[in-house]
């Protein structure tokens, strides 16, 4: 056998081995990817993904404040915000805060009620800061004995 022929056989073996290796490696990578992302979400257009996967929106919004609103919870930005996020929203929705209104005394009594009946922990020196935040950003509004109808969406019935 000439040297040339030996060289050509060696090259062929080299190419064959390389191709097999590349195929196995690619399969290996795909398997790992599929294992981590069974829905193949990266292959789906990005816009659709943002709507279907709300958790990613939430994670993306964690800690972000825009125009005075903490995006993750919808709470108003202010001194004590993160204390409220940490101590209140681990047990209940921030909506429990944003839909309620009270003065210092009112918020204090809600905290006391949660401590007595709902397993809320002792807030220590943070209690005053939390109450300050709540009574400043969610104070009572004067509503009278019956409010005017507002936000009427007019539509044609005929």
């Amino acid at each position, binding site marked *: 056998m000439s040297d040339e022929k030996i060289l050509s056989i060696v090259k062929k073996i080299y190419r064959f081995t390389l191709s097999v290796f590349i195929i196995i490696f690619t399969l290996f990578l795909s398997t790992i990817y599929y294992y981590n992302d069974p829905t193949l979400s990266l292959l789906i257009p990005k816009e659709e993904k*943002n*709507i279907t996967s*709300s958790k990613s*929106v*939430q994670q993306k*919004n964690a800690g972000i404040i*825009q*125009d*005075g*609103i903490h*995006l*993750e919870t*919808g709470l*108003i930005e202010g001194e004590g915000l993160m204390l409220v996020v940490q101590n209140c929203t681990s*047990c*209940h*929705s921030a*909506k*429990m805060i*944003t*839909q*309620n*209104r*009270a003065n210092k005394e*009112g918020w204090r*009594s*809600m905290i006391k*009620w949660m401590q007595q*009946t*709902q*397993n809320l922990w002792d807030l220590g020196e943070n209690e005053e800061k939390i109450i300050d935040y709540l009574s400043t950003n*969610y104070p*009572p*509004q*004067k*509503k*009278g*004995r*019956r*409010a005017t*109808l*507002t*936000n*009427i*969406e*007019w*539509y*044609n*019935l*005929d």
Partner: protein
Amino acid sequence: MSNRRDFIKKSSLATISSILGVDIVFAKNLPKDVLPLLLQEEGFYTKFNKHKDMVILNDRPWNAEAQAHILDDEITPSSKMFVRNNGLIPENIDVDNWNLTIDGESVNTPKSYTISELKKFPKHTYRLTLECGGNGRSEFNPPAKGNQWSIGAVSCAEWTGVRLRDILEDVGINQDAVYIGYYGADTHLSGNPEKNPISRGMPISKALMDETIIAYAMNGENIPLAHGFPLRLVAGGWPASVSGKWINKLVVRNKIHDGAKMGGQSYRVPCTAVAPGSKVSDDQMCIIESMPVKSLITYPKSGAVISENRTLNVRGHAWAGELKVNKMEYSIDFGSTWHRCELKAPHNRLAWQRWSANINFPKKGYYEVWARATDTNGTMQPMVLPGWNPKGYLNNACHRIAIKVN
């Protein structure tokens, strides 16, 4: 699902706040990017198969109410039924091995029933009005803490099950029985397995009524998960919290039941009337029993614009707790004059009653249609808020809608 998504995308903030039934405070500060957060709540509508016009008040635990215009059905479908939870909805319910145990001081020998054993007792079906004790809380001034329900925490579905009385007779209860308490499979928000989210009940007299049932079906199907699958205690006309969900144990007590949310200020109002904003000690608070007389305008939806000389058909439901509604009236001049509506008898005791009226408006302009029900005791709904109470219960003030005649 996509309808709601489009709907939210297209809605202005004003629309969203009107859906929420409250002003979005600092709405002008709310950035556009916050709107996708509302989309996160889509899960609620699909998971519990709820109508897109249901309004979420709280997502942990889930609490949501209907709006008046989606409550027009004579029998409330599950999709339009308010959701009120004190704890977390149980998961992985094993119906075949579900047991209802009857125990307590006033029971000699505790007894357990599987669902198929319960179904051997005579079957009864009733339409029963269930209204949250805190329905209407959002209007109170000074504000009361808790979920800020507007008007939609009420339903009248058709419940099928066995009479609690039949079960209690089968178990055998002592003469000293005064109260029934329930326990359910829901879990406390804190995650503490030792704590019950809610364990309320009713006096034995209410428990022994014909219409007080242990239901295994609602509107002819299995009870939906959010409404108590597989067993719910149903006591129409009383605060809906008396109608325990996911029940697995009932206790017959020789004293007033002392489970979670029976004591303190929960589901209680001052025994004697107090001035708005007063502090009331726990021992001066009395348990709410029958709900007060009330009505809703379910058609048309508020905001209708109609042409002059057109007769407007207005209709809705009226109910009165343990009592019946005797008279139904409407006013288009803020209560200066009242006119009779047509009022139907209830399908059965404790079911809401259909009412309707044809209204002719005298001239063009802005009108409000106010509706007022009167019960068999002659008690009527107030136009202003009823007596203030610390927790904001029992707001039965007249419902009203806005109409424009062009």
